[in-house]
């Protein structure tokens, strides 16, 4: 085991347990919030530099609250597979263009090669490989998006939906007994600089 260990680990492991691949592309890291225990695999792209440029509070006057510049916030136990791309959604707001934050809950799995530009993703969400989540989509909790799905912009996917197709449509409901399958704690342990085998 230890004989083939590279001098530097493939992952950077932070104090809060995040495992970020050295080969991942994180742009604008100061605007990316990781909740902890999140895995970012190699060649993932996260665009933290595309921050919100119009703040509604600043226009209405009053005291300028400390501006929250978070572009992408990611909860705990999220898993961003290889080649996925997370970027904040952008739109015209009162005649000007601005990006808006992308918020993700806990236990969100994003499959390899998927492109996510949602406005919000709840907790316990599984996004299959090769999917496209359009701008300002809202995905609630316990949602399973099958591989290759194209979720159109502005679509709202309610909790406990199974979604597939191009464009996406709700094709089923997550059964009561299927909630535990969204847990990503075990998957978290299987990657990193000293991964453990997947438990049975």
């Amino acid at each position: 085991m230890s004989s083939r260990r590279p001098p530097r680990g493939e992952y950077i492991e932070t104090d809060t347990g995040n495992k970020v691949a050295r080969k991942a592309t994180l742009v604008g890291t100061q605007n990316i919030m990781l909740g902890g225990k999140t895995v970012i695999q190699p060649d993932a792209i996260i665009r933290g530099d595309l921050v919100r440029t119009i703040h509604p509070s600043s226009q209405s006057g009053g005291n300028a609250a400390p501006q929250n510049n978070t572009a992408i916030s990611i909860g705990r136990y999220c898993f961003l597979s290889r080649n996925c791309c997370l970027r904040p959604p952008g739109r015209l707001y009162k005649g000007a263009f601005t990006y808006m934050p992308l918020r993700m809950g806990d236990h969100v799995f994003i499959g390899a090669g998927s492109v996510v530009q949602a406005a919000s993703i709840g907790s316990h969400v599984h996004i299959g490989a090769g999917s496209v989540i359009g701008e300002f989509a809202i995905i609630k909790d316990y949602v399973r998006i099958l591989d290759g799905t194209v979720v159109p912009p502005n679509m709202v996917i309610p909790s406990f939906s199974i979604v597939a197709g191009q464009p996406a449509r709700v094709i089923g409901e997550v059964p009561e007994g299927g909630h535990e399958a969204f847990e990503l704690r075990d998957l978290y342990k299987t990657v990193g600089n000293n991964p453990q085998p997947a438990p049975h």
Partner: protein
Amino acid sequence: MAPSAQSGPKPPVHFSSSLTIAELAVLTGAHHISIHSESVIHPRARLDSLAGRVTIGRRCVVHERAMIGGSASSGLTSARSSVASPGVLSPTAAVAGSGGEASQSATPQSVTLGDYVTVEVGATIEAGGTAVGDGTVVGVGARVGAGAVVGKHCTLTPQSVVSPGEVVPDFTVVLANGMRRTDRRGMTELKNKGLARQIEVLRRLISSKPAKFA
């Protein structure tokens, strides 16, 4: 942060002074790459002029991992490794003549984008006299085959495919299931204005490093 993979030969470039190109963009090839005014190249976008010259018009936006130029013959594989790509059709020089709308300087293996073209994340535009008309949006993960000519103000929905050599009329919406529609929104002006606004913001957010590629 991983160093940007600058593989292959460094191509001669012709940049407008008002363009925005991220440091992590990847430019390779031997022929000219010209990018006209106010266009934006996102990080990890790949422009490959190995087969022929790449021309990008005014106010275009090329997103992450988009692949412009390059083909099976240039030995480069698409960055989209996980998404099943049905074996890249080898572009033949025979279709080169179909690039009627391409700019006058189009070489047989060139790629020409008009003005106000958006190339979304992970989209691929193969080289080979390929032309994309003004105001067209190439959706996420979409693929424009070698020698295809996409008209003006078309929309290629995510993961749709325009096969090599195909000619797509203006205002066509290409759906991922192969269906085609006509865009009757009549919103081209609004769309272009929106894109201009987006570019204004992007110019502020992305630190441009044209010197790196010059």
